[in-house]
């Protein structure tokens, strides 16, 4: 499994690199959509680690994306005068900014996770939702991050290569983590917390770990997003954006990485082609959630049966 996964990762990065060499000749609009797909994949797969594999319910994933995006963009904006975007320093700065965004998001994730992950289910959902809102309020009032207008003029650094290879790395890390000996703990916490703690697995520790790793990748995705759209507004990271990613995870099947990737691609590409029906999008989303929960709670793209079935 492991060496196979490594080969897939390498293949994905090579494909991303090769296609990005030709990206100059692509239609700019479709190129933008393709980058969006990469970012959505990172968000959905990292959220799947928290909501799917570990069985928690976070409604504030967009908040971590905001933390990563804003801090990374602030960093590049402050230093961009000494490192022009096209130069090697510019690219190095971008990589540093991505990591910086990921790390600040991970630290925020730790700060959020430690108190709130002692709660479960519905409490956790509302606390993460609340934290997402707090993060938004903080960015909205902070002058450093442009207050309500947000940050503008962020250098365009995100290419197809970066979006796709970070997505590949995210999928790889999450898949390897969950399939490792250590990572079985996440699934144990998901299946039965009491039994897991009886086996010497600390549920809180695993939950916080999942939260921090998920937040890290959400932060990196936020950095990619900031350097893709070049404009960041606090309003863009509200509750509804978190819901977008939650829908991807539910549709793909909680805890099914492949299904979640399919859902992330579909739910990013479809709205672009259905612009005429934009006002119906959220109505359809909500009906989809209800119908899925009533008829197919394991997710639309979960074909493989899990080894253990729970009622």
């Amino acid at each position, binding site marked *: 499994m492991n060496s196979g996964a490594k080969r897939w990762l390498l293949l994905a990065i090579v494909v991303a690199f090769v296609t990005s060499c030709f990206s100059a000749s692509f239609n700019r609009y479709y190129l933008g959509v393709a980058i969006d797909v990469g970012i959505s994949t990172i968000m959905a797969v990292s959220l799947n680690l928290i909501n799917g594999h570990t069985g928690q319910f976070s409604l504030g994933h967009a908040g971590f994306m905001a933390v990563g995006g804003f801090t990374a963009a602030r960093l590049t904006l402050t230093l961009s005068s000494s490192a022009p975007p096209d130069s090697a320093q510019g690219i190095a700065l971008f990589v540093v900014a991505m990591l910086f965004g990921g790390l600040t998001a991970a630290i925020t994730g730790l700060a959020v996770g430690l108190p709130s992950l002692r709660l479960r*289910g519905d409490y956790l959902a509302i606390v993460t939702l609340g934290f997402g809102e707090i993060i938004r309020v903080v960015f909205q009032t902070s002058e450093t991050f442009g207050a309500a207008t947000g940050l503008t003029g962020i250098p365009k650094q995100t290419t197809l290569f970066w979006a796709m290879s970070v997505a590949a790395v995210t999928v790889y890390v999450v898949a390897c983590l969950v399939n490792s000996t250590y990572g079985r703990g996440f699934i144990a916490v998901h299946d039965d917390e009491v039994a897991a703690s009886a086996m010497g697995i600390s549920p809180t520790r695993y939950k916080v770990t999942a939260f921090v790793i998920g937040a890290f990748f959400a932060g990196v995705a936020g950095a990619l997003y900031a350097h893709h759209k070049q404009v960041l507004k606090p309003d863009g990271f509200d509750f509804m954006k978190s819901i977008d990613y939650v829908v991807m995870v539910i549709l793909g099947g909680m805890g099914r990485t492949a299904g979640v990737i399919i859902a992330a691609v579909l739910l990013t590409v479809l709205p672009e082609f259905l612009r005429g029906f934009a006002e119906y999008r959220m*109505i359809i989303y*909500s009906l989809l959630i209800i119908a899925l929960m009533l008829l197919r709670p394991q997710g639309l793209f979960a074909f493989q049966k899990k080894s253990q079935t729970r009622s």
Partner: protein
Amino acid sequence: MTEFFQQLINGLALGAIYALIALGYTMVYGVLRFINFAHSDVLMLGAFAAYFLAPVVQSAGTGASVFSAIFIVVIAAAICAVIGMLIEFLAYRPLRQRPKLTVLITAIGVSLFIEFTGQHKAVFGANTKPFPKLLPESTINFGAVSMQSNDVVILLFTALLLAGLWLVIQHTRTGMAMRAVSFNEKAAVLMGVNINRIISFTFGLGSALAAVAGIFYAMRSPGIDPLMGMKPGLYAFVAAVIGGIGNLPGAALGGLLLGLLETFAGGIPGVSNYRDGIAFAILIVILLFKPAGLLGRIQPEKV
């Protein structure tokens, strides 16, 4: 000092609204052990019911009078009670034996469905609509303290509703059955309680209270829109958790606390920008030190 009393009345009126909503959350949690995310949208529907009813009722009667206002509130509450029971019957009842997370996700789906259907231009439309005057408004001067008549009405009416609710739950057979289901569902069934009827009743009661709260909230705000329920819904939920979810006096207490907190924090320059964050910060602190809320009891976990 005058300002303090004015803020106090303001905060109490807002807190009363939060308390009414929080009671709905807490009652549903008591019988079903899950958070009805769609509760905040029932509140919005209550306000919209009053918005559409008011011109009809007021043109038939004598304009904005006490009687027309009571009539509007009662009909809106009845409509919302039916909607609440329908939501339970269609979306939650088929899932009763499923994991709680499934029901929670469904509740979020129902909430989004109501919000976005309401925002569609063929339904309510996304723009803010001015809420009609239900009562003749005036300013009551009490010494140097002046208060809005609406706030006084809200406080009095909420006190009446809370007393009524307490009577229903403590002194009627249905109320006793509700307490029984909340205490131990299986034992209640063995004692001959019709559980479906009780859960339905609970949703109806909670939704009717939410409708009243929605109308009160609309009376105090400049206008109504399909997303108006989100903020009071979230605050009321925080109130229910702070008071100890499943605990009725706790919900009322939490609501009043949050209403006062929001009003007083809004008056302090510098803090007012972070007002929305403060409620959640307090929620987190309380959950850390008293995970069952102020008045709740910790239930030991059994395998």
